[in-house]
């Protein structure tokens, strides 16, 4: 039986059959691998821990007709802290789901290291993951994935009239997800209510910084960490990125719902409530016709 090796991140792992797991791996060269890990749900299985989500490992796989299989596995980095609290699990799941949506059968250089870096950022630090840090890491990951896949939004000129979207005495416009970029204030007024997301000058600057590319040096995580961002601008950046993602993927990440629930309960606790009265609200959701990622 033909075998091959891959250093990969486990992005999804689901029960399969009697005691197996069906895993989705993201190889470091950006390929997506779906494989079955036989017996991995049995406590004595040597594969059990290595096929848990968020683990970085070296895998020996066999080629099957419809599904490949995991033959041997060695953990390189278990990312134990990603399982340390709910916000970390929720954020890592969101990153994993997005990465799986962008990965395919072909190589995609940069995708694996980007997700690895996102996991490292989310896993770092003691105590529960602060909401502000989590949101910045997620924004940087979203921008990195969009850039790597070639879906960088147009942030330089109004996508309708082609003029600069703001500056030189003109007010900032907004973000038009259906056109994948910014609109100036004049075009925003003509576009109609509900189709354009608010995007002030500060948020636009943050987005430009996020999508600055390799020439800006450092990773998108480091670029964002150095910035001082007002809560309003952060919310606008999140909304624009998620709306853009929604149009690119034409689907809503399933893990966003749990992220929203934890955000709402965390916010309630910070504001003095008990966090029990949570609602399915929080971060803006991509307008993606209600479809979820497969």
């Amino acid at each position: 039986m033909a075998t091959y090796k891959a250093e990969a991140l486990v992005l999804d792992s689901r029960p399969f059959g009697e005691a197996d797991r069906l895993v989705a791996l993201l190889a470091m060269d950006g390929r997506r691998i779906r494989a079955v890990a036989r017996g991995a749900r049995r406590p004595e299985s040597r594969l059990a821990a290595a096929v848990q989500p968020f683990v970085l490992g070296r895998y020996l796989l066999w080629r099957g007709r419809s599904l490949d299989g995991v033959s041997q596995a060695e953990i390189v980095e278990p990312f134990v802290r990603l399982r340390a609290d709910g916000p970390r699990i929720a954020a890592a799941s969101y990153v994993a789901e997005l990465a799986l949506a962008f990965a395919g059968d072909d190589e995609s250089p940069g995708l694996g290291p980007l997700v690895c870096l996102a996991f490292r950022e989310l896993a770092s630090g003691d105590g529960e993951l602060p909401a502000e840090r989590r949101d910045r890491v997620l924004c940087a990951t979203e921008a990195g994935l969009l850039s790597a896949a070639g879906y960088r939004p147009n942030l330089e000129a109004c996508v309708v009239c082609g003029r600069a979207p703001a500056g030189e005495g003109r007010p900032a416009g907004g973000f038009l997800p259906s056109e994948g970029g910014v609109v100036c204030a004049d075009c925003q007024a003509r576009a109609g209510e509900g189709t354009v997301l608010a995007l002030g000058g500060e948020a636009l600057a943050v987005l430009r910084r996020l999508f600055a590319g390799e020439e800006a040096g450092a990773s998108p995580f480091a670029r964002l960490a150095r910035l001082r961002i007002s809560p309003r601008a952060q919310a606008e950046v999140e909304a624009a990125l998620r709306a853009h993602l929604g149009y690119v993927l034409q689907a809503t990440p399933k893990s966003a719902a749990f992220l929203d629930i934890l955000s709402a309960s965390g916010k309630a606790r910070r504001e003095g409530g008990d966090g029990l009265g949570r609602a399915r609200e929080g971060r803006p959701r991509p307008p993606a016709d209600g479809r979820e990622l497969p």
Partner: protein
Amino acid sequence: MAFPGPIARLIEELNRLPGVGPKSAQRLAFHLLGRPAEEARRLAEAILAARERVRRCEVCCDWTDAPVCRVCSDPRRDATKICVVESPKDVAALERTGRYDGLYHVLHGAISPLSGVGPGDVTIGRLLERLRAGGVQELILATDPDVDGEATALYLKDVVAPLGVRVTRLARGLPEGGDLDFADELTIARALEGRREL
């Protein structure tokens, strides 16, 4: 090959069962056809009886054929402890140990961000009602030691915290009879975290 209508229907229905593919469904169907009619009738009646008479326990949500299951209605059980499990199979596994005398709560699933299963999709609301009713001193979280089980346990820890109930988690680490050098880093790390005084 096209089978006669009743056989095709039987194969189709068997094929819907988890872990039963088209070939297995055919094999099971022909096995049933080859057995005495009485045997097939007993199987059909058992399926129907289970489906019609078994329901969720009004207290713990485990499967039962009475309004309240035998564990919840047993006065000898320690009602100050509730062990939270993902499925009724886990209750059976814990009962086989003979070492637990408290009550259970069956979630019928686990929070799974990647599968889109949230707190509202399992029986967490019913569990919170039980805890708010008072009398419970310890909540033992016995969800699976995987990411979904962990997400569920951590979520429960947070929502139960304001209620003042002690929350514990089943210990994790090396399996009985295993060699240390064959264990993976994750398991050894968990075992070290959970070490205890001898």
